[in-house]
Each structure stands twice: as C-alpha cells, then as structure tokens.
C-alpha cells in the first residue's frame, strides 16, 4: 500500500511542473506523457514477463474486454471482440497489451493468440472487480499471480512457441504457432488441411481471380488469399479450447466470420468448420463477379474483393477504387490494408501513413506488415 502512494506521489511530483509552466495547448501532450510515465512507473512494480513477446493477438468473443492499469487494477477503457492487440508481456492471469498506442492489462482468458485460442474460462473476480472495481496495485499483482499458478484453465501457452518455414525471396518466414488445446478447432487442427483444400478446390477455380505479383516477386495464389482472409477474420480460430465458437461483436461466426444470414443464403452451417470454409470460398465466387468488384482488375480487384467480403459485395462504397477509399478514409480501409500486408503487396505512401497512424501501434509499418505476412502464411502450415 505504501509503495502505491509513493508511486502516485512520484508521478504527480514529476508531472506538476509541466502543468504549471505550459500553456493549455501543450497540456494535452503533457497529460499523455504523464499517462505513459505513470504506466512505466506501474510496470516497474508489476514487472511483466516479456520473454517471448511481443506477439499479436485478438480479443475473443462478442462482448467487450476491460483494459486495466495493472492486473485487477483501475479500468482504463474497454475494447470490443475482434480488436487486434500487440501483446507485450504477461503477469499472472493478465497480458500486458498495447492497442493503438494505449498500453494496459487485459485478462488472458479472453484473448486469442494465433492458434492458441482464448479459453473463456470465467476467472475468480477478487473484491468488486466483476462490477468494474479494482484492487490496490500490490494486491492486484498478487491476486493475478496466485490465480495463474493455481488455475489450469488459462491459455495453454503464455508465450507461443514458433517454428519457421522457408518462403521465396526475401519474404518474412511463416510463423507456425503450437497445436490447439482442449476442444479448440483452429488452423492447426488435423482436419483443417482437408477442409481448406476441399473448399479451395471446390470454389476457387470459379473465382474471377486477378493475376497479381507481390513485392517479393511471388504470384499471389488463391490459397494465400483465402488464408489471409481467415487470419484477418478469426486469427485462424474457429472454436476456442472451451469449444466456444469465435463470434464477433456483430454476430459473424467461425473461421471466415460468416454472418448467420449470409451462411443461410450460401446454404451452409457457419458453425461447422468445414462448411464455414466452404461457405466463405463460395461467397468469394459471388464477390469476385459482383457489380463493383467484377469491373476492377489487378491489385485493386484483389484488395477490393477483401473489402467487399468485409463490407458486403453490394455496398455502394465499393463503386470507387481502393485508392479512393484510402483518400476519403471511408469504407473498409483498415481491412483492405490488412489484405495487402498479408499478401506481401507494397503499400503506397498514403497507405503507409494510415497504417502508422491507426494500425501499427508502436511497431514500424514494415515490421507490422512483416508480422501480418508471417502469421497469415503460417496458418495451417
């Protein structure tokens, strides 16, 4: 407890001169600095384990997940299911994460790692933390560590093990995280390759797929495109270790995040992994030939097909080019950029500035793009 007050005193004594001496317009910047300094000071006490990090993850499920200042600490904000995270470390049952430049702690039972899905195991909520309350710093750290050591229901891997596979040219190596646990159905499940090959061989031949070569001089294949979509949509997790179906905040389901009505229209059961992949591949036949995407060619067609999959192929926003979308910052810009990075397609200066501002967090644009390429190519390998 004394350490906590000492910490607050240090933070305020550090920040006060800045407030006193700077005009209003600069105070905002100083307050942000203060928040970062506060987080840094907290982390000196929490001391998250950073060996094996950073890794990329996503918030699982359809609800929102609290970001706290420290394990079981003050709630800073909440993020919806599907949010991408840069996981910087782990402390007990909490991951130390970064979302769009904001750092904090999130309960790891609700976070998907690539091929190590969230368990969704309900944690023991100390004090009034279930209602949004918090524990003092040292109590929170102790409670989180104690729960992690006594529980077997947290993520099977706090630091995912990876092996590397060689790819052509100078492309980043494909990262292949460990096998699924419990009732999980992921791209590492033994049947995945069969389901994937079946879906691709049944439908990809009917796609009006453009001929595109990436920045590594490699022709983009239908398989790579399909894997990119699976990675962007679900991080390759159809069901987590508890058997819970990956479902987004808007109700989209499974590997390819089919909306229930879309799955019905395609004549598949989106909750079944094989049918989910089959439905997604079938959907792309319609997407590539749809009113707006069908008129495009080359990279624009490929990227806009991804945007159309995300937005819906008959959206009026698909009438223009992807360049228009980026310039106007409307539509599925972030999605289209993820498609480009997963496929190893070069980004324009405008696109790079969007990625830097809104997507890559503290990472460089190139490091972020390489990470997406690696994980996307590692799916099912």
């Amino acid at each position, binding site marked *: 407890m004394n350490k906590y007050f000492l910490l607050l005193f240090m933070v305020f004594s550090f920040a006060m001169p800045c407030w006193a001496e700077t005009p209003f317009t600069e105070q905002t910047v100083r307050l942000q600095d203060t928040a970062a300094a506060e987080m840094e000071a907290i982390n000196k006490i929490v001391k998250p384990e950073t060996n094996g990090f950073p890794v990329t993850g996503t*918030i699982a499920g359809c*609800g*929102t*997940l*609290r970001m706290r200042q420290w394990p079981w600490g003050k709630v800073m904000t*909440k*993020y*919806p299911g*599907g*949010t*991408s995270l840069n996981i910087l470390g782990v402390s007990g049952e909490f991951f130390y994460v970064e*979302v*769009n430049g904001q750092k904090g702690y999130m309960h790891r039972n609700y976070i998907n790692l690539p091929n190590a899905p969230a368990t969704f195991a309900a944690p023991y909520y100390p004090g009034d933390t279930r209602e949004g309350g918090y524990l003092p710093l040292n109590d929170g750290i102790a409670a989180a560590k104690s729960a992690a050591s006594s529980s077997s229901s947290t993520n099977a891997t706090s630091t995912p093990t990876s092996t590397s596979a060689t790819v052509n040219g100078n492309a980043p190596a494909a990262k292949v995280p460990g096998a699924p646990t419990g009732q999980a159905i992921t791209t590492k499940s033994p049947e995945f390759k069969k389901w994937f090959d079946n879906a691709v061989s049944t439908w990809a031949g009917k796609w009006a797929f453009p001929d595109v070569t990436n920045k590594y001089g490699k022709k983009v294949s239908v398989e790579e495109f399909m894997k990119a979509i699976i990675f962007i*949509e679900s991080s390759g997790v159809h069901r987590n270790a508890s058997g819970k179906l990956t479902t*987004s*905040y*808007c*109700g*989209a389901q499974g590997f*390819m*995040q*089919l*909306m229930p*009505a*879309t799955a*019905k*229209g*395609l*004549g598949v059961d989106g909750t079944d992994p094989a049918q989910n992949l089959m439905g997604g591949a*079938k*959907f792309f036949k*319609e997407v590539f030939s*749809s*009113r707006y995407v069908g008129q495009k060619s080359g990279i624009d067609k490929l990227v806009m097909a991804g945007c*159309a*999959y*995300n*937005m*819906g*192929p*008959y*959206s*009026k*926003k698909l009438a223009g080019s992807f360049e228009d979308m980026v310039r106007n910052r*409307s*539509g*599925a*810009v*972030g*999605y289209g950029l993820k498609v480009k990075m997963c496929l190893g397609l070069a980004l324009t200066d405008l696109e790079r500035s969007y990625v830097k501002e*809104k*997507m890559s967090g503290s990472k460089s644009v190139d490091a972020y793009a390489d990470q997406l390429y690696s994980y996307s190519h590692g799916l099912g390998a």
Partner: protein
Amino acid sequence: MLMLTSFILTRMAWVPEEKNHMKKNFLALFAALLLPFTASAEALNEKIEIATGPAGRLMLHKQQAEGMVAREDRLTIEKDGKASLVFSSEGRAIERVLHANLDGTGGDELLIVMELGGSAGMLELAMMQFKDGKYEQIWEETGFSAGKVSLADQDGDKNPDIVIEYFTDDTPPKEARGIYSFKSGKVSLLKTLPPGKAG
C-alpha cells in the same frame, strides 16, 4: 420439368390397382428426384405488407436465389390491382422499413434499412419521400457496421430524427452514434456522439 411430371403422372394412372405399392414407391422416388429442381429456383420469396395509406398498400418483396448472398428485394405500392416499383435493393437485403413523418409536413417518409451480408455486419440506409404522388429517393448513407437504427426526437422539435448506433472503421473499432435530421427536404448530420463506454 412440368411436361415430364404430367407425362409420368398420366402413365401412372394406367398402373393396375393390385400394383398400388409399386405406384406409391415410384411416386415417392420421383418426388425425391424432383425436389432439388423445385428447391433450387429460390431460397427466399416472401411478400410482406409494410403499411397502408392513401397511395395504396406498401409491400416488401424479399427475393433471393438459392446459394447466393445477393438479394433482389423490392418495395412496391399496390393500388387498384396495379403495382408500381418504389425501390429496388440491388443485391442488398431490405431488413426493415421504418415509416414516420420526419419533417412534420406531407406524408410519412420511408427509411429503408439494408444489410450487406459482409463479415462486418454493415448496413446501408436509403430514405424515400412521398412527393407529387410518388416516392423519390432523397438520401443514401452507407458504412454503418453492426448498426442499430431507430427514430426518436433528439433536437426537441417534436419530429423524429434518425439515430444510428454503430462501430467505426477504426482499428480497433469504436462505438459511435450518428444523429441525422430531415428538414426542408434534406437529410443532414445533426451530430456524431463520441464513442460511448462499451460493455
């Protein structure tokens, strides 16, 4: 297919009474073979009455071909046995049609809420105004992810405004609310509320 069905049924009439079990089995087999052909024509074909007014009955026809996401939904006005087209969805799925007098003058406006079928659960909206005896499209807005649309007075003028709760395209997406007002024949964004506290 109709001719083949008529031919087979006609021939079956000549099967003697004592071979009725054969007749039953054959008809069951024939029906099973016929089923995929009849089912493949349309996965969805519904007609729903939305409202009735002086212009006639406003009807929503939902139509979708088997195995497709595209919907060819239509809104029509039916009067005196004649139907005239009000709006065609062009691939999008009309899920709701809200009708209310949004500007306090004339008749009800129609707010058409369409789902796009993509993984982000996005919506598009179209608004129709009844003018000079027919409906005209005066507004179209797109890109609301996982949106909830309702009508409620937000600016105190006693006329309902359009309230849209949605997720932004930011990474990560943020919850937001857009309020649109319809006045003097124009729809304008009244305000966008900052992302709320989720969950």
